[in-house]
Every structure is written in structure tokens, then in C-alpha cells.
């Protein structure tokens, strides 16, 4: 029964991993840039949710919307100021410089967050925070189940947007082939901007949900960036569904290894898994295409 309990906890946290990774994957897929400050954007999303709740009592499940908007704005600014100048560089330079800029950005955002909000851990504690639902001997915390549901809804919405709407299709076309997309009249620069904003907005949603189920502090960025990277590599690029499943998979794997090896090694397990996949199946566990 403890086993099943761990699996459930893993699944519940895994949904957030998937959500955290989708934004990173989207930006990488469309812009061919790797924003290693993605975890810092998640951290900012967490603080947005926290302050909305603390100052005005906004329910975190509603706060995901303003949080997404705020981070969309932040993403647009970051893109315009820093990342836009890379779009005409060669693929390799683009990738490398985006990593370097993101690396510098992590330091800047983290230091600003410490200055603004101190290094303390904060959590969004709602009235229903402790509620649990027992299902056949396994305890399901309501909050985490809600976060998983929200993550699933957001990803489903994103899937519909990318596959059923014209802007979504334009975005996918740009990810597939920039030149062809631009030849058929897709405003590629605007798609780039929107993708970066959308990726950041997804980080905002993920961050608010993280603030609800875990805690937020200025230092959480790197570990969330790593989680997102692990999930992206596990799932392979390009599939939202694959990313979500990979997130769940990582959540369960971490939870199980925490149970077997001790909680201190949960994160290590995910990273080891990641290296194994890099070694044996660089196209990802669920991907089929060749490695980028």
C-alpha cells in the first residue's frame, strides 16, 4: 500500500513536471533556443501567485490566469531585449548564446528576487490546503490532485490551440521549417515573439501551481530548469502529450527512488535517469525522430 501511495504522489507531482517542461520545449522547438532561465520564470510565477493570494486573497487556481499574463509580459520583454538579436545567427550560435544569456539571467533574476522578497521560503496556504480524499486505502491530497487537473487542462488547451487554430498552426509550421513558413506568409518574427511569451506564460502557470503544492524561494530556479530539461529529454521534442507522460514518469521515478533510497536522493535519481536516456536513447523515451 505504501508502494501505491508513493506512485500516486509521484503522479501528482509529475503533472507539474510536465507543465514546467512544456514551456521550455515550446521555445526550443520554435526558436531553437534553450532558455536555461526557465526555472527562474517558474519561480517568478510562484511569487506572482503567492502575492496575489497574500495581498488580495486571490485563489491560486484563479491566480494562474493573471500569473500567466504577467509572465507572458515578462517573456515578451526578455525576448525583445535579449533573445531577439539571436534569431538571425546560425543554429549552433543561437543555441549556445541563448544558453549563455539564460545562464546570466538566472543570476540576475535570482539576486533580484532575494532583494525584493528575501531568501525565505513561501507557500500559498489556502483554507483547503490540508484536505485529502481517501481512495481505497490510498490518500489523495486534494490540492495536488487539483494542480494535476489544472496542468492537464492547460496542456489540453495548448494542444487544441496548436492543432485547431490558425495561429497555433502557424506556430507549428514555424517550428517545422522557418523558411517555408515565411514563404507562405506567416509573420515569423511575430510567431517567435508569441512563442517566447507563451513559453513564459506556461512557466507562470506552472510556478503558481508549484507555490500551491510546494514552496517558492529565489533559489528554486535551477532545480526546476533541470526538471524541465530532464522531462524534455525523456519525452523527446515536439509532442505535448509525450512531454506530459514523461513528466508523470519522472514524478513516479523520483517518488519511488525517494522511497527506496531515501528522500535525499530523489533528485539524483531523475538526473541519473536523464543521463541514461541521453546515453541509450537520445531521441527520448517516447520520441521517434532523430536527436536534434
Amino acid at each position: 500500500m505504501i508502494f501505491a501511495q508513493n506512485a500516486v504522489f509521484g503522479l501528482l507531482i509529475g503533472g507539474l513536471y510536465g507543465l514546467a517542461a512544456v514551456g521550455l520545449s515550446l521555445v526550443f522547438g520554435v526558436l531553437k533556443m534553450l532558455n536555461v532561465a526557465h526555472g527562474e520564470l517558474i519561480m517568478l510565477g510562484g511569487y506572482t501567485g503567492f502575492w496575489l493570494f497574500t495581498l488580495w486573497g486571490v485563489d491560486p487556481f484563479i491566480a494562474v490566469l493573471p500569473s500567466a499574463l504577467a509572465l507572458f509580459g515578462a517573456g515578451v520583454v526578455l525576448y525583445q531585449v535579449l533573445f531577439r538579436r539571436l534569431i538571425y545567427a546560425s543554429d549552433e550560435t543561437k543555441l549556445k548564446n541563448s544558453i549563455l544569456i539564460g545562464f546570466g539571467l538566472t543570476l540576475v533574476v535570482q539576486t533580484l528576487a532575494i532583494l525584493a522578497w528575501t531568501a525565505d521560503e513561501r507557500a500559498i496556504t489556502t483554507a483547503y490546503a490540508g484536505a485529502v480524499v481517501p481512495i481505497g486505502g490510498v490518500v489523495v491530497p486534494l490540492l495536488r490532485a487539483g494542480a494535476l487537473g489544472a496542468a492537464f487542462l492547460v496542456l489540453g488547451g495548448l494542444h487544441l490551440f496548436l492543432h485547431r487554430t490558425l495561429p497555433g498552426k502557424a506556430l507549428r509550421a514555424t517550428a517545422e521549417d522557418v523558411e517555408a513558413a515565411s514563404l507562405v506568409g506567416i509573420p515569423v518574427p511575430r510567431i517567435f515573439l508569441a512563442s517566447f511569451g507563451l513559453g513564459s506564460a506556461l512557466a507562470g502557470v506552472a510556478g503558481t501551481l508549484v507555490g500551491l503544492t510546494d514552496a517558492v524561494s529565489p533559489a528554486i530556479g535551477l532545480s526546476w530548469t533541470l526538471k524541465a530539461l530532464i522531462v524534455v529529454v525523456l519525452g523527446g521534442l515536439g509532442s505535448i502529450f509525450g512531454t506530459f507522460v514523461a513528466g508523470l514518469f519522472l514524478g513516479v521515478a523520483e517518488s519511488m527512488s525517494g522511497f527506496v533510497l531515501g528522500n535525499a536522493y530523489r533528485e539524483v535519481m531523475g538526473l541519473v535517469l536523464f543521463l541514461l536516456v541521453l546515453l541509450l536513447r537520445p531521441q527520448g523515451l517516447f520520441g521517434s525522430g532523430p536527436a536534434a
Partner: protein
Amino acid sequence: MGGTAPAAPLVFVSAIALLSLLPVVSANQAILNWAFLVLLYAALAQSWNLLGGFGGQVNLGHAAFFGLGALVTRRLWLGGLPFGAALLLGTLASAGMGVLVGVPSLRLRGPYFAIGTLAVAEILRITVGNALPQVSVLPAQALATYTLVPRYYLSLVLAAGITAAVWWLARSRIGYGIAAVREDEGVAEAIGVNAFRHKLGAFVLSGCFAGLVGGEFAYYHVSFYPSFAFSPLWTFDPLLITYLGGVGTVWGPLIGAVFFLSLREALALRLGELHLLVFGLLFIAVVVALPGGFMEAVRAKGFESKMPNARV
């Protein structure tokens, strides 16, 4: 520095001669300590530059090599081995890890190398923090005889040695091969350069040098948490130093280290935590606006040199 090719070694040798006199002319421990740190950071940055600048591969897990060198050297040394032997084994451990990590990750293109190395560094940092939570302190008799001067000379020897090795390598056939792979892997392969072997060689040597500097850190520090040597700062600082000074140049890391430690000294006193913000912004500004670092700024004024230049 810089100048024409024959002048550069002359400047280099006289700088070493002058620096080796420092403990003789000045008994000021603060100055000696500062010079020690400049040389340590210069050597570490140079080791990153070997792969990142000349080889064009962004290693985000350099701290892993520094940390492993520090950990192994420290434990063997405090365990009773002579320091030289401990340092050698620590360096070998880092080199071995370079092979283990490099073989799978360097075969893949794209972002896999950067994030793979980042993952390795985090695995080691967390694991070491869990397994060895106690702070490592020098034993009493080592503390009683502790002096800065031998540490300083070790630092000088390593910084000079690593710089000379990189300088020599950059002019060798292997160095040209590494630069060719950086500029265009496909073209390099087409003219008969084995890209994977060149990248792996540069990576292992870079890790080896980082392990050496880590061992030096283990020799220098009176007390530190073993996981501290694996902190991402040991990746970020050498990266920053290399980019500030000039990535892919031999002298860049040296100039960058002097600048970095001067600025850190000045800023940390006045601004505290805020000095990290300045460094972050400075780093982004260099990557975005001055990709050649100070070396490029100098060169633009007409001091043309023959040093291979990285375009990143």
C-alpha cells in the same frame, strides 16, 4: 598584453618572474591571498576556455571537475598521502570522469552536451552533500604549520603551466583541429579531422586541469563543506571571467581574472548580495554586445595579434 607573437612569451615569462618575487618583497598576507585567488581563478577559467573557447563546447558542469579534484585530493591528503600524490590522483579522477561523461554526451549535437554536463554537476553536488554533510577542516598540526607562501607558489605554477599548455596547444596541429571542429564540424570531418576525438581530448584535458585547480583549492582552504566545491558558482565564475577577458584567447582568462577579483573585492564590500546582480548583467552584456571580451576591445584599437579567435 598581446602584441606580436615573439613578444607575448617574453611578457609571459617576465610576468612569472615578477610574480614569483611577490612573497619575497611583500609580507602582506592580504595581497598574497588576493594574488593567490587571481591565479586560481585564472587557471580555472583557462581550463574552461580550453574547451569552451577553443573547442566551442559550452560545459555547464565545470564545477563537477573542480569539485571532484578538490574532494579526492582533500580526502587522500588528509588521509595521510603526500600532497603531491593526492593531487595527482585527484586530477586523474577528474580526467576519468571526463571520459565517462564525454563519450556519451559529445557524440550528440545540439544542447545535449551543455545540459548533460549541468546534470552531472548537480548529481555530484547533491550526492556529495548527502553523503558527506560534515565540514572538512584541516587537522590541528596542519593548521599549526599552515602558511600561504607554498599555496601561492603552487597557484602560480598551475596558472602558468595551464596557460602555457593552452598557448602551446592552440598553435599545435591538434589545436587547429579543435578550432576547425568549433568553426564547422562537417567541414572539419570532410578535411579529415576526427571531430569526436578532438572534442573528447579537449574535454578530458579541460576536466583534468579543472581537477588540478580543485586540488589546489583543497590544499588552500582551511575548512569547507565538500559539496561547496561542486557549487554552480565554480562553473559560473570561470565562464564569466573567460567571457569578460575574451573567450578563445590565451590571455583572456588572465585579464578576466584580474578584473573579476578586483571588481568583486570592490563591489562585495559596498553592495553585498547586489554584486551578483552586477556580474550577471555584465556577463549578459558581454555575450550580447562584446562577444570577444576585453581582448577584442584591445584588438579593435589596432593591436592585431595572431591568436586564434573564437566566434561565439
